[in-house]
């Protein structure tokens, strides 16, 4: 699970190590990555929204 999160974080960041990437794509399961990706996207939205509303106060 932690590995999935780390990989998705790397995807958001846009940088990934070749070896780690190989691991991700040998596990053969896509769903965990998609779910984690969607969740992280939501987290990102909430995060930016929180920062924005704090800044707007």
């Amino acid at each position, binding site marked *: 699970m932690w590995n999935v999160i780390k990989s998705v974080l790397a995807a958001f960041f*846009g940088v*990934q190590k070749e070896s780690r990437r190989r691991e991700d794509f040998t596990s053969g399961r*896509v769903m965990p990555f998609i779910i984690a990706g969607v969740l992280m996207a939501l987290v990102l*939205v909430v995060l930016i929204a929180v920062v924005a509303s704090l800044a707007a106060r």
Partner: protein
Amino acid sequence: MASHLPPKSTTQHSQPATAGVASQAHATPRGIKRWLLTTNHKEIGTLYLVLSLTMFFVGGLFAMVIRAELFQPGLQLVEPEFFNQMTTMHGLIMIFGAVMPAFVGLANWMVPLQVGAPDMALPRLNNFSFWLLPVAFTLLLSTFFMPGGAPNFGWTSYAPLSTTYSPPSTTFFIFSLHLAGISSILGAINIIATILNLRAPGMRLMDMPLFVWTWLITAFLLIAVMPILAGVITMMLLDINFGTSFFSAAGGGDPVLFQHLFWFFGHPEVYIMILPAFGIVSVIIPTFARKPLFGYASMVYATASIAILSFLVWAHHMFTVGLPLVAELFFMYSTMLIAVPTGVKVFNWVTTLFRGSITFEPPMLFALAFVVLFTIGGFSGLMLAISPADFQYHDTYFVVAHFHYVLVPGAVFAIMAGVYYWLPKWTGHYPNLRLGQWHFWLSVIGVNLTFFPMHFAGLAGMPRRIPDYALQFADFNMVTSLGAFMFGASQLLFVAVIVMCIRGGEKAPAKAWEGGEDLEWTVPSPAPLHTFETPPDFQPRQH
């Protein structure tokens, strides 16, 4: 439901044939019927590319009218109404008629060749997707001949100028966009299914060439946002013809709602037009630097990241419509974030060049110009992201300069790079390299003469979409117009190169470019009508 979901992407390697043959023994139709009825991905790809080139010249003609009128202050050639029709149709034709079909055409030709598939996953649907487009554009262009003329409210169609105050032909414009939208969605479905389902045995997702990767993500964006466009133009249709008040405060609606929906489509649409360009460039640069792409994995991840972020930034097109402060900040922050993965891509291309062994054939020239000039467009994009500054930039020629830098020396140069790169595979001949170089240099000079002065005109205060302007903008506009005529004229060379290449030229071997490593270079040049009827044996490269 879970068991009914489509199968997981990694379980779909080769399936031994149990029944059936690949092609029936029917005689292939000839002449015009061959093109009308074809289901072959190469023929359909050619059709898309020809349509795109035609539309490029139609949209280009409109641009020439615009630039001729703006050559000097005052109204000389056309009436303001017609000028507005020109700007609107120029945008629509170039986006939906030239750039998007060009990328779909390249995908049709190259995705099956690059993944080792016999054809697109759903060949008949593929032909349907294509033939919807000529129908759509016939409908769209026919609006010029209707009372009140063609749509004149800008390609963004902001209500209520595009509803209550629009010419009668707007209804036809909406229907033609519906057709183009259906075509895009079906085309995208086909491309996704091909990539996920028809890869050569042994080719994992992370072994795919970047062009395929970027198209996979682009196709996802298309399927996600074209329906939003369909929805919002349907609401326009209802406001115009059935008295609804979606975009009118009188009935409780809001004109800004239109813009939110439109840009929720429109921003991913921007990436739809640039991600495949990233893919093409990422394939060409390693070939001519004779060195593997630097940071392949990062490139893929950065593409995914840009795609996700593209759904969160739409209102940066609307900083001056009066968004609440929180929204303004949210969209400023998220937009600034998008610069990061985009930067990663540029850095990776540069590092790919570093310590390579570089040659400068026309595909490489266009790809290199792409990297430099797209980056300039990226810089102005970064400036536009700063919301307070955008209050001065918005709706000026600075914005026009920005998006033309990412679309012309961006998307269009990438398409041209792709055409030069793959012409040997399509025709079996090398394009005339000398003419190609002429085409390149004239285009590069023309494009910069056209669009660079627009930055200054915009900063000095010239709004976009005006047929006449104050005297202090005269010099910038004259240079821009001259550059535009030069760029326009030099595209005739492009046509000449293509025609000559089809008719003959130096014979190209299967591996036409020394550094080309992808699967398409394993089939003969020109590629026979049917390729990979037997799936190739794919050996993953060490990335």
